[in-house]
């Protein structure tokens, strides 16, 4: 798959999705389909798909205990063990996972290796990927939480509080949310590094560009609705409340931009369980991170451990008895 094809196929796919929603709502007036049926189907696919994938992973045995140890092991009592990077207990492994999931610990180690004349290898700090990844995931999470205001009436105070923090800078009318800018910025960075770093470009697939374009599309349509083309917020809330209460209503005059936004979000949800985005759940099951390095102290059981053919000592002695005898090595059987 060439770069051009990967990139353009993904971009065109997202543009096509936008067009479908636009034509569907503006042209064919399929407001109920786009406003209710598709969101329901998408959420159903998301929930069922996620559960299916997680159960499937979890049902596969973990034959060996293979943590990647990134700190001092537990050995002698006076040697300080790194209980998080090289846990020997389930609690330690759980803390390691917290660091991994909430702070992207491993990505934080990232550095750039450069070959300079000499020849001389040098290692430079490279935290941009970590920073962008963190900015992207957290702003996405906060934006999701902010959207709860559309599904709960009255709006819970934690959501209001979050909105207040998020619009801390108090610029623009309506107030600009920092996370909106962070999301767009981070996704753009993640996209540009795929395009401009030759190695990244070489390994990137349509399934790498597509979610980026899709999320960018969601961010942009969301931003347009909030900051530029005011949509009927009251109508939207009526619709979302209808969805959450399983009595879908399609109010008039919401605006096509909303339907495009909702369709892209629905696509993201439906696409999620079939894609690399499943890393969100998969990271919790990663056997190099989520288990303790205590194999020598506590036996790990492999459910499919089976007997194998070995070369026994008796066979060995039979093979070499004369040599062993001449060399004066002790024997089990003298002849």
């Amino acid at each position, binding site marked *: *798959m060439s*770069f051009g094809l990967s990139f353009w*196929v993904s971009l065109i796919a997202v543009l096509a999705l936008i067009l479908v929603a636009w034509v569907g709502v503006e042209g064919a007036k399929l407001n109920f389909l786009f406003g209710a049926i598709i969101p329901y189907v998408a959420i159903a696919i998301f929930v069922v798909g996620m559960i299916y994938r997680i159960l*499937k*992973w979890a049902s*596969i*045995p*973990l034959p060996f*205990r293979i943590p*990647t*140890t*990134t*700190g001092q*092991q*537990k*050995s*002698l009592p006076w*040697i300080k063990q790194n209980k998080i990077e090289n846990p*020997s207990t389930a609690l330690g492994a759980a803390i390691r996972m917290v660091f991994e999931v909430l702070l*992207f610990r*491993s*990505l934080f*180690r990232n*550095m750039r290796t450069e070959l300079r004349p000499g*020849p*001389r*290898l040098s290692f430079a700090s490279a935290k941009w*990927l970590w920073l962008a990844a963190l900015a992207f995931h957290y702003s996405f999470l906060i934006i999701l939480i902010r959207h709860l205001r559309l599904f709960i009436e009255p709006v819970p105070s934690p959501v209001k509080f979050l909105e207040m923090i998020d619009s801390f800078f108090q610029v623009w009318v309506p107030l600009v949310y920092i996370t909106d800018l962070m999301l767009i910025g981070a996704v753009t960075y993640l996209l540009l590094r795929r395009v401009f770093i*030759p*190695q*990244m470009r*070489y*390994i990137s697939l*349509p399934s*790498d560009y597509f979610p980026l374009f899709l999320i960018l599309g969601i961010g942009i349509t969301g931003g347009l609705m909030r900051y530029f083309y005011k949509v009927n917020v009251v109508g939207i809330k009526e619709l979302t409340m209808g969805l959450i209460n399983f009595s879908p209503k399609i109010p008039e005059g919401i605006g096509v931009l909303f339907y495009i936004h909702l369709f892209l979000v629905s696509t993201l949800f439906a696409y999620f369980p*079939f894609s*690399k985005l499943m*890393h969100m759940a*998969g*990271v919790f099951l990663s*056997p*190099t*991170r989520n288990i303790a*390095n205590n*194999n*020598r*102290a506590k*036996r*790990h*059981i*492999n459910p499919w451990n089976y007997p*194998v*053919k*070995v*070369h026994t000592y008796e066979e*060995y002695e039979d093979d*070499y008895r004369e040599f*062993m005898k001449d060399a004066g*090595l*002790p024997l089990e059987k003298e002849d």
Partner: protein
Amino acid sequence: MAEVEKKEEREVPYYETVLGASPEKLATVDYKPPAKPWMDVPPKFKKLDYLNPAKVKWMKVIDLPFPREWSPPDEDWKLPENWKEIFLNGMEDRLKRFRSFQLFMDICVRCGACADKCQFFIGGGDPKNMPVLRAELLRSIYRRYFTTSGKILGKIAGARELTVDVIKELFKYSFQCTECRRCSVFCPYGIDMAEITMIARELLLLLGMHVNWAIEPVGKSFLTGNHMGLLPHTIKDFMDEYRDELEKITGFKVDVPMNRKGAEILYIVPSGDFFDERGVILTIATLLYFYHIGLDYTWSTYTSEGGNFGLFTSHEMIKRLNAKMYAEAKRLKVKWILGGECGHMWRVINQYMGTVNGPADFLEEPVSPITGTKFENAKDTKMVHIAEFTADLIRHGKLKLDPSRNDHVIATYHDSCNPSRAMGLFEEPRYIIKNVCNNFYEMPESCIREKTFCCGGGAGLGTDEQLETLLRGNFPRSNATKHVHEKFGVNRLLCMCAIDRAVLSMGLSYWCPQVTVGGVHELLANALVIPGESPRTVDLRRQPLKRPITPGKIAGKEA
């Protein structure tokens, strides 16, 4: 091995002559990926730069399927008729048996954090040696045959057909990965290339394809107990010779207990310690050390190999070879097992042994006979690392040490991949080194401990059959060594791994010939102050000491 010894006497680095390229030239790496998409770039097998296939004889010894004569540059690899079916069935079976494999096929986001972490990519620039892409070689097949999107969308979903060229590509790159796990340290999801390489090699093995550098040691280990195929009487002869050499140097005449029943401890080392020149010095050092502490132990010819090339072959083979350790411990009625300086041996002991061949309920929980320390961390597997054992002795003041006896050595320490990233053995060896050697300098933080580089020869790659790849893979480690050599005058690269001792020596002879390689316990034995010692002017490798040893004196002063 003969090659290694030959080149060390030459003025011009031997490998430079063989390769026809100076280090400066070889280290000019072009990182620019080809214009063609990677799926369209067929694998090439450059002359004298691939590993030779497993020989029929050794395949048969260990019951491997489809033994045959073939060679990577050949057009026809003589694959079995239903090769595709075998391969895909094998894949399906492993997806069901290894959560790691299924998960690592599913969750990679291709963020590229692993790309410049692999020594083979850093030193060679081939994009298919970026761990992410090396894994995609197999992942693309997974998508095509085991995911709905891949079946329907094909290339757009990153899927591709399984062809003979794909098999050739998998063969090439599975043997340009040393299963060192450095990439897995940096992966945000802990995806472990070693795990993927291990499965890829198992799949190739189903088609009767593997490399002789791994399969011959496996076969020999199966029959004779060690990778080199040393027979029991040969080992005995060698050990007698080393005992005599020790006597000549130090005046101490020691016992060499072999296959002795009723000893307290069974001592298992990589077989390199019986023949490789640096390993042999380690053996001589160990004989002196154990004599000094009066250890009740035994060597064994049946388990004359701590290493386990089964790890580089298949999960089943790990178990088949490892089984000897417990079997021999049981037969000799020892209490517990002590393991020597070896790398992947410790990955097997720490992450596989208890699971595949345990429980070792016929052994006792390991206790140091000298200090009484219980090795709680090894209470199930009942096997203790010699660095743990020695660090405990030093801590309890049980060894009289004179580090000035190593003043001719300026040392740095290379963490071996497996004890680092599959165990976490970082402080024990450093504690020993700091107690036995006055001049110790670390390499840069980015390439030691969990971030250590591989020597370039692990996982069955440690041969000059694939010389260029080996030297390129070795480059990052040797380059860091060169850095501390230039900065601090380092002249000895210490390590705790037999493959390291051999491969780092090969690599350094090309990249930084001023530095030699050796084991940690060699320096320990050098520094031992033993009652009744004789005066001497050389260390255990017969290198002149800075200050001759006068019995009873430490650092030139009365003890």
